[in-house]
């Protein structure tokens, strides 16, 4: 029997959980926001202790331009995994899109400190480079 997801609502095998999350991201890449949101909501209900579906929800909201809701989702992921750098990096991303570079910098710094060699640190550094290249300059002006 395959490994089960810990603290899941019902017994969920790890490959099944991975498949569900993959499906959510595929819907997201296809632009099917509602379907992606449904999948991630379902996975969040199945795995209430996991921050991964909340990060997926945040990605859906960013794709739709709803950056405030995205930030809420990433904050929820952060509460579930306070020692993880990835939710902090994503929160910084949402703050950049909201035209709040100073707060975003704090999140990126926290992400780099929590996860310097991991995904959170890499994403934070990549977003920092993009910010310095002026990609988000228009967002700051609009604000």
């Amino acid at each position: 029997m395959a490994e089960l997801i810990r603290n899941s609502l019902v017994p969920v095998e790890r490959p099944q959980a991975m498949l569900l999350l993959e499906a959510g991201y595929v819907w997201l890449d296809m632009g099917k926001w509602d379907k992606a949101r449904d999948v991630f909501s379902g996975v969040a209900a199945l795995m209430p202790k996991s921050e991964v579906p909340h990060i997926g929800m945040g990605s859906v909201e960013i794709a739709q331009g709803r950056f405030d809701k995205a930030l809420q989702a990433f904050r929820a992921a952060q509460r579930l995994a306070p020692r993880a750098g990835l939710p902090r990096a994503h929160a910084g991303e949402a703050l950049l899109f909201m035209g709040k570079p100073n707060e975003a910098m704090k999140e990126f710094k926290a992400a780099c400190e929590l996860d310097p060699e991991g995904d959170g640190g890499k994403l934070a550094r990549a977003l920092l480079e993009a910010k310095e290249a002026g990609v988000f300059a228009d967002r700051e002006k609009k604000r």
Partner: protein
Amino acid sequence: MSNRINMTPARISTNLTIGRQTPDNSFGQKVKTGLENTANALASGASVLASAVPGGAVLSAAVSSMGNMTSSQGVGAAYSMGSAGVTALPGATTPMINTTLPGATSGAVPGALPGATTVGGLPSVQGAAPGLPGQSNMQTMADQMNSMLQLQMQMNQENQAFTTVSNVLKVRHDTVKNTISNVH
């Protein structure tokens, strides 16, 4: 009593003025037609290779598509969909197409369209406007070189922005893959 010797009344033509019926094949008209065709080709964005232009004139064009993604929805969609870096940039302005022809002159051909330029290899049009000082040609070249430099700087900046956005999209993709793989 009239002092006119000839009492015949002055002849006044009542014919309406009509357009030229025969084609105008004068030199000036041919030059004008050529300039109009060149300007139209440039404006339509047709790909003109430098080697195809008589006299080896160099044509440079810069297209900025950043303005295509100005809306927040569009930005988020392209940003998340991992599409090519070009479309993922929060745009700032409407798309611009700039074309410059070094060595070109403007406004020296009688009847030329405003902004029309000459292509290298065509008869010099400076001679058509006698009395222009020689410095104007040098100034024009200097202005064009400045605009070329600015164009190059803009392209470098855009290239850097595209590279960084592509890197972000790649990192996001790798992050998602690792996160799903490590779910527990």
